[in-house]
């Protein structure tokens, strides 16, 4: 809340946002959102946001704290269902299927749209159990050998296998912060999702661990569609192909990352990326 007030106090409130500028839509969309409003009780957190997540691309969501980017991200796999007072309106589609539609089972949706959280949150179980849990509950492996293989490939993809291959039975909570976060990524990709949502995945990590995660994101986009919320503009510039700038619950501008960071069209975007506030 404090950040919203400070953003307002910097005079940004006087600048009008009249629909998003830039190129929020694309032809090859994995997920498309149209006119999305999100309410917490009577409080509107997201105002009429429309854009697409392009297939096999990394889309960065940036903006000052409290601008609704995490809230929006959590709508994409219905994590907001856990908050009873949260209410989502508008159309959100995954491959043309309505996410909040009656036919969509949230359990299946979350298997298809995985999520990595801000703070590494491995289960207090062994490293193996952490990665194997998702495939187990969804019945992805028919026997132990198959499960072993899923765990191994997921850890390899997450770039963690070499570090932990000798201690798969030791607790996941005993790893370092960066390793824990990669374990969480391995856990997410073990379910073979189509989209991975990342909510500030590197904010609790040191620069070295962050570099490893960013490298990982680069490799993952070959197979997955990725949306990443980040506070670091350098990180957004490094890992993403598309960038969306959020401000006070509205989408201000969206377009190619290069273009947003070199030649933003909107005054608010320019203020933000040039470090005048946020």
């Amino acid at each position, binding site marked *: 809340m404090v950040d919203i007030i400070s953003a307002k106090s910097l005079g940004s409130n006087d600048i009008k946002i009249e629909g998003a500028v830039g190129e929020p839509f694309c032809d090859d969309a994995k997920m498309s959102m149209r006119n999305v409003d999100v309410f917490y009780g009577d409080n509107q957190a997201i105002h009429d946001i429309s854009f697409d997540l392009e297939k096999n691309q990394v889309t960065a969501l940036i903006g000052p704290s409290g601008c609704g980017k995490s809230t929006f991200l959590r709508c994409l796999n219905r994590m907001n269902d856990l908050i009873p007072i949260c209410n989502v309106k508008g159309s959100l589609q995954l491959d043309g299927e309505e996410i909040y539609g009656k036919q969509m089972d949230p*359990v299946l949706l979350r298997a298809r749209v995985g999520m990595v*959280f801000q703070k590494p949150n491995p289960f207090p179980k062994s490293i193996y159990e952490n990665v194997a849990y998702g495939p187990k509950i969804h019945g992805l492996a028919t026997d132990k050998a198959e499960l072993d293989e899923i765990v191994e490939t997921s850890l390899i993809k997450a770039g963690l296998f070499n570090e932990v291959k000798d201690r798969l039975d030791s607790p996941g909570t005993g790893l370092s912060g960066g390793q824990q976060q990669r374990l969480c990524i391995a856990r997410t990709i073990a379910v073979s999702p189509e989209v991975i949502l990342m909510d500030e995945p590197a904010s609790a990590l040191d620069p070295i661990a962050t570099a490893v995660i960013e490298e990982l994101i680069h490799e993952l986009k070959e197979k997955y569609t990725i949306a990443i919320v980040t506070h670091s503009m350098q990180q957004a510039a490094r890992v993403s192909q598309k960038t969306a700038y959020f401000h006070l619950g509205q989408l201000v501008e969206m377009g190619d990352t290069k273009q947003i960071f070199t030649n933003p069209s909107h005054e608010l975007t320019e203020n933000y990326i040039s470090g005048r506030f946020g």
Partner: protein
Amino acid sequence: MTKAVNESLPTSAVTEKIKLSLTKRHRSEMMFKSTGLAAVVLGFILVFVLLFDITSKALPAFHQHWVQLEVDFSEDNLRYSEGISLEDLRYRSTLRKAIANQFPDVKSRRDKRKLYGLYSTNAEFAIKDFLIANPNTLDTIQNIWVRVDDDVDIYLKETTSLGEPLVRVDVKEAQWIKSLVETGRIDKRFNIEFFTSSDSREPELAGVRGALTGTMLTMLVTLALSFPLGVAAALYLEEFAPKNKWTDMIEVNINNLAAVPSIIFGLLGLAVIINIFGLPRSAPLVGGIVLTLMTLPTIIIASRASIKAVPPSIREAATGLGASKIQTTFSHVLPMAMPGILTGTIIGMAQALGETAPLLMIGMVAFIVDVPASITDASTVMPVQIFLWADSPERGFLAKTSAAILVLLGFLFLMNASAAYLRRRFESK
């Protein structure tokens, strides 16, 4: 403002100010520390005094004096003839003859009666059981050990000069006891019967097995009912129930229930479980149900607190992977909350273990000699047994009461130890 004032002062003056406040702060810290330490020491002393007192009073109950009798199992004595069952022989007169043989000088009726009183009333059955177990000893003379009467037992344990009268033993009796001791016919043995026999009107025969079995059965019923019910209720209220005024009201009522005097639950058990549902009186089943009502709020409150303490990030992680609500709850939330739930359960069970009042209302206070074989048999429990013995006029029950308290404490200790073990196993996972 203050900041400006401080900045204007030279550094040393600020340091002086801090130093001044430091002594005060250190003093209050010391005060708190020493008060805490004193409280802990006082607690330890009280527990130690209690345990020492009980143990010293209980020790005599673990030994029992036995006396040797030379019993003449002649057919004449027993009035035995072909075709009569060994059950129906004249054991009492045989016993009395054996006793009289030990003291040929005692002639008067009154003295003889006194003399018989030195031996436990159980002696008659002891020689009967002996003969039935060894039928080939018929028509022989056997040395048989029987218990002495409780007054004699206490006299032997407490006397400093053998032969002198003490409390309930007069001069004559003291002399007889002395002669028995001098001829080596008295033996002090470990009182294994204290653990293998049930309640009795005679202190030398009374044991805790019946009450201990009753306690185990009652606790088993209580655990089997209150643990799943309590955990399920806590899980539902924390994880599944909508947050509205109904669940608020339920929460308030559960908290109130924890504060209801336990005897009320006993009355409820009597009025509803026995009188309406017609379950048997004095049974561990009913006792367990009543104690469940009493334990349930404790378990629910502790379980809810420990479920609430599971970090939401774990729920998010599981949900984000596509785990359903039930999978998240049972594979992550419940195992993480388990140590706290076990602590709550053990507190509730320990409370139930020491409970007497509600069990009085449902008839578990009855004098029951048999060891209960099932949860529907009449039985009593350890605290009630302690209450009954403490209430008995015989001096022999004094040590038995303390010994029973020790057994109860031992049972509690075992229960706590097993819970601690289980908790450690859940925590290490």
